[in-house]
């Protein structure tokens, strides 16, 4: 697989390590009323879709940035690559706005 890094261009996926579903960016609030349940779900439960999957990859042997890669789990085709930082900012803005 080739990951088209937003800053560095196309890179071999072997330079990266994989973490998992990009929902891991959205850590629950530790003081929320249902924190125990929310952290349980956050850490252990997954949508695990067959099809488009947004997931976190770490450019360990490169610029050490975290990326959010949109990849089809049935074909391995990668359709979108974003900096995880940008995704987190958008998520945060949506949260604050809501």
């Amino acid at each position: 697989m080739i990951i088209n890094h937003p800053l560095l261009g196309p890179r071999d996926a072997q330079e990266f390590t994989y973490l998992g579903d990009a929902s891991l960016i959205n850590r629950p609030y530790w003081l929320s009323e249902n924190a125990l349940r929310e952290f349980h779900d956050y850490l252990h439960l997954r949508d695990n879709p067959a099809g488009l999957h947004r997931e976190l990859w770490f450019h360990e042997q490169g610029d050490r940035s975290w990326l959010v890669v949109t990849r089809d789990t049935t074909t391995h085709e990668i359709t979108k690559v974003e900096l995880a930082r940008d995704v987190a900012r958008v998520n945060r803005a949506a949260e604050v706005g809501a």
Partner: protein
Amino acid sequence: MKYSAFRLIKEALTGHKGWGPQWRDPDPHDAYDYVIIGGGGHGLATAYYLAKEFNGARIAVLEKGWIGGGNVGRNTTIIRSNYLLDGNEPFYEFSLKLWEGLEQDLNYNAMVSQRGILNLVHTDAQRDAARRRGNAMILNGSDAELLDTDGVRAMYPFLNFDNARFPIKGGLLHRRGGTVRHDAVAWGYARGADQRGVDIIQNCEVTGFKIENGRVLGVETSRGFIGAKKVGVSVAGSSSRVMAMAGMRLPIESHVLQAFVSEGLKPFIPGVITYGAGHFYCSQSDKGGLVFGGDIDGYNSYAQRGNLPVVEDVIESGMSLIPGLGRARLLRSWGGIMDMSMDGSPFIDKTHIEGLYFNGGWCYGGFKATPAAGYCFAHLLKTDRPHETATAYRLDRFMTGHMIDEKGQGAQPYLH
């Protein structure tokens, strides 16, 4: 039809014209007492034991493709009872005991071969871990022997003993472990279940559940609605997809695992060898092919095929352990979709929906579990209580803190 030597001679003399199909190909009825989703090893074994041991009546197995087309027909066929933790080892020991009597029980040649499994160690720390695991195995009624370098050399003189980085310092030998002809397991259970009245319905994909007031009433399928009092889901790599139709999210990710087989060679590896310093394990099939594999590819996948980096990793590890491997040509490689759980251990449990039961999360090790998983799932379906060897396989164990993490890796499926 019963298989026997007498029958074989009779058929040999009459042109093998009397062998009928091994199971029927029935159309689905409107309703059953038990519907098992998934015609892999586990689903078929569940139906078999449900009918045979638990007097279950009106049972159907629904399979979206053909039986044996999933992981049961894609694995590297290793069976063993060499786990460390209390939640696991009694279960796998129960499974190995069922394997030992399986062929007589099924009247079917599944080529169960207890040729021994050797886990190599390369450091002092690994030897200590092997000794601890061996003791845990023996405490649970399994067998284990710790070999030193000479002991390993006597069995497998061709290994790379003096590798500068990873010298072989011994190994943990589990003599009752071995291999089984994987397709024959699916076929044997299918035939046994069919003989006891189970309907095995192929080309029948489950596309939804009918759930009312928190109770399951049946399943929607590509061949119409089928009513059921109890539904058992046993679909391995498709677990998340199927349970999502019941509105559930699981502690499971689907990952691809690859395997490889070489051209046929004269017998040279009598047992199963696992490398302690790389992702590689190997055995030799009765046809002579070297059957080997390594680690999962490490990212979510439903593609049933892997990528080249893992191919390279497995072959490199293999070459560093068995240099002679380089002379063999690779015949085929393939992949299967693993239901990787968050602690590397499986689930055999009820769900919060009345009448809906789940068996899955078997990671890359569910083949050896086939008999016991079938038995324990049938026990749960019939009695609503877990079998005594499967009490730890709960879906809520991450909430209650009772994880069964053999490797101590935490909630990271790609590392289990």
